């Protein structure tokens, strides 16, 4: 019965999609994806301008459909964690790109006051429980969030976003097993961009049909082609709503990492022919073409939108450059709760020790 329900929902959405009518969400999905694409391009510029905090900047260009498609089905009160390549997901969930960029620049005005940076952005207001620099590190938190949702009967889901590389980490299976065992409202979204640094997924596992693992643990599990954001959104709707109803899920979104692993990596380990083909799997361009094809938007309307987004994102750089670094004293803040004493600085301790006579 439960499965039947899901199929019914799925069927409806499909129908909605095929008819290129008013109820398509493609324009909105396109806009989200374009904002992500442009934001990431600007992150690259921030780096080139020497204004980023470090070079550990992981761009999600080519993966926009995963962020847009899944986040389209999240609601207020839902929560999520991301991996180190999580800018797009957070933007899709409603982040302020200026505060994001400021965080990436290590500035006081950033989401985490410059303590976190690109790999540790979080925002409790939007349910972002945190990006993570540990591959797989943020996954089990969604099990805990699922327990909270069950306990407080909030109807919220919690989504873990991670890369194909994280399927090497045992904690993923421990977490999926718990979610399935307890029927928690958890969704595991694997953004399979084919690479973990220089390692192709086929060099990391004998069976790259990643969803089969999740199925073996008892989750609803699918793989979807990330070229088509509508397909991602449909699968996400099915699985997210299933999870809300107590059937945790796994979704692998197949896509391609357009550029290097981090800003300095030129991917010398990849075949240029493969790269070219990979970059043709462009969900932003694909959606754009579909909008025009289906007569939902004209080329010039889209150009205007793209320009508008360009300006919005340009402003994030100007904003960031104008911001200040966090004050040195803030270093001792937030180790413990505000009502607790701060750790004593080493210099103060030494002063005390040597002031004895």
């Amino acid at each position, binding site marked *: 019965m439960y499965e039947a329900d899901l199929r019914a929902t799925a069927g409806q959405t499909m129908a909605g999609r095929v008819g290129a009518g008013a109820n398509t969400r493609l324009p909105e999905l396109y806009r989200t994806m374009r904002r992500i694409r442009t934001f990431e391009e600007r992150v690259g510029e921030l780096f080139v301008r020497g204004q980023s905090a470090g070079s550990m900047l992981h761009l999600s260009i080519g993966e926009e459909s995963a962020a847009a498609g899944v986040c389209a089905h999240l609601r207020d009160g839902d*929560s999520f*964690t991301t991996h180190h390549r999580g800018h797009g997901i957070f933007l899709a969930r409603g982040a302020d790109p200026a505060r994001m960029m400021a965080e990436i620049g290590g500035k006081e005005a*950033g*989401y*985490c*006051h*410059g*303590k*976190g940076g690109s790999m*540790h952005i*979080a*925002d*409790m207001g939007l349910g972002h*429980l*945190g990006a*993570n620099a*540990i591959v797989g*590190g*943020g*996954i*089990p*938190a*969604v*099990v*805990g*969030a*699922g*327990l*909270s*949702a*069950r*306990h*407080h009967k909030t109807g919220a889901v*919690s989504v873990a976003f991670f890369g194909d590389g994280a399927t090497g980490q*045992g*904690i993923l299976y*421990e*977490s999926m*097993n*718990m979610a399935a*065992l*307890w029927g928690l409202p958890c969704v595991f979204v694997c953004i399979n961009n084919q690479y973990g640094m220089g390692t192709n997924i086929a060099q990391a596992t004998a069976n790259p049909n990643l969803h089969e693992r999740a199925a073996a643990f008892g989750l609803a599990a699918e793989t979807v082609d990330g070229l088509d954001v509508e397909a991602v959104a449909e699968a996400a709707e099915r699985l997210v709503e299933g999870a809300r109803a107590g059937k945790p899920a796994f979704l692998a979104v197949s896509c391609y990492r357009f550029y290097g692993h981090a800003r300095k990596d030129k991917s010398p380990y990849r075949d240029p022919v493969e790269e070219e083909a990979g970059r043709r799997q462009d969900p932003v361009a694909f959606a754009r073409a579909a909008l025009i094809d289906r007569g939902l938007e004209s080329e010039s309307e889209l150009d205007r939108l793209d320009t508008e987004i360009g300006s919005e994102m340009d402003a994030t750089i100007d904003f960031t450059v104008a911001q200040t670094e966090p004050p040195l004293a803030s270093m001792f*803040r*937030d*180790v*413990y*709760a*505000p*009502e*607790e*004493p701060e*750790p004593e600085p080493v210099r103060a*301790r030494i002063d*005390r*020790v040597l002031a*004895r*006579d």
Partner: protein
Amino acid sequence: MALQELTYRDALRKALADAMTENPDVVILGEEVGRYGGAYGVTKDLIKEFGAERVIDTPISEPAIVGAAVGAAMTGLRPVAELMYVDFIGMTMDQLANQAAKIRYMFGGQIGVPMVLRTQGGTGRSAGAQHSQSLEAYVMHTPGLRLAMPATVADAYHLLRMALTKPDPVVFIEHKALYTMKESVDLDAEPLDWGKAAVRREGRDLVIVTYSRQLHYCLEAARTLSARGIEATVIDIRTLNPLDFDTIRAHVERTGRAMVVSEGVMTAGVAAELSARITEECFDFLEDPVVRVAGEDIPISVSTALEAGSVPGPQLIADTALRMLAGRVPA
């Protein structure tokens, strides 16, 4: 005021039960905490009282247990995760040290991780190298983690109750050899402040700083010493983070001699921190170097004889104090 005769185990159990009654957001999760009642019986029957959604039996997945507790703590629960043995902390150090300990900081103070990780450690049950360790130093060396290690029945109760009100992650390490220890306690008594050491005995000749089971060995040694005319002050630090150094300082400055006693292995352990700190802060008052009495720098054997030989006992503590005060004692 109602005095009760309680075991350490039952005091812990009562702390959990009282906290769960008071705060509906307290949940327990871990291996065998429910139907089985805990490997050492601490959570016995709590599942009957509070149900399986608050006393959650998990698969054998330590990393995800701690990780799930982190997520739960960030979203409105007050989880008490249980690690059956502190020896398993090695599998969970990423979730504990990279996630729980750093989340508040990395995220610029947006949120804390108010969880308690209960576990137990130490020797005494011939449990071998992987079930007998004292690994509190890993925790003490990790900024962001609070660390409590009760030595008495009253502290078992009060420290655990307090841990369950703290805004930051608390690692709470019990000692496996203390579960059956009985004491008469007043659970309604005003507990000492969280983060305040307990002076368990006062004496003019030297200060012994310790915690957890070694407290009892130190007190036993102090009685032996007393019979030989040496009076030791024995300080139970109770919480290793926060550490109440003021109490230690006051007594060391008064007596001029300090010994630190810990069951964990000596090198780079808690005893090293205490020794370094005492030297830094009380140097001009010290007549002797601070002496460390700690676990041998070796793994623990299953053989009972070797196991007992691997960690300090009352004899070694007393002998060491006697040597420190050799000038004062009639030979």
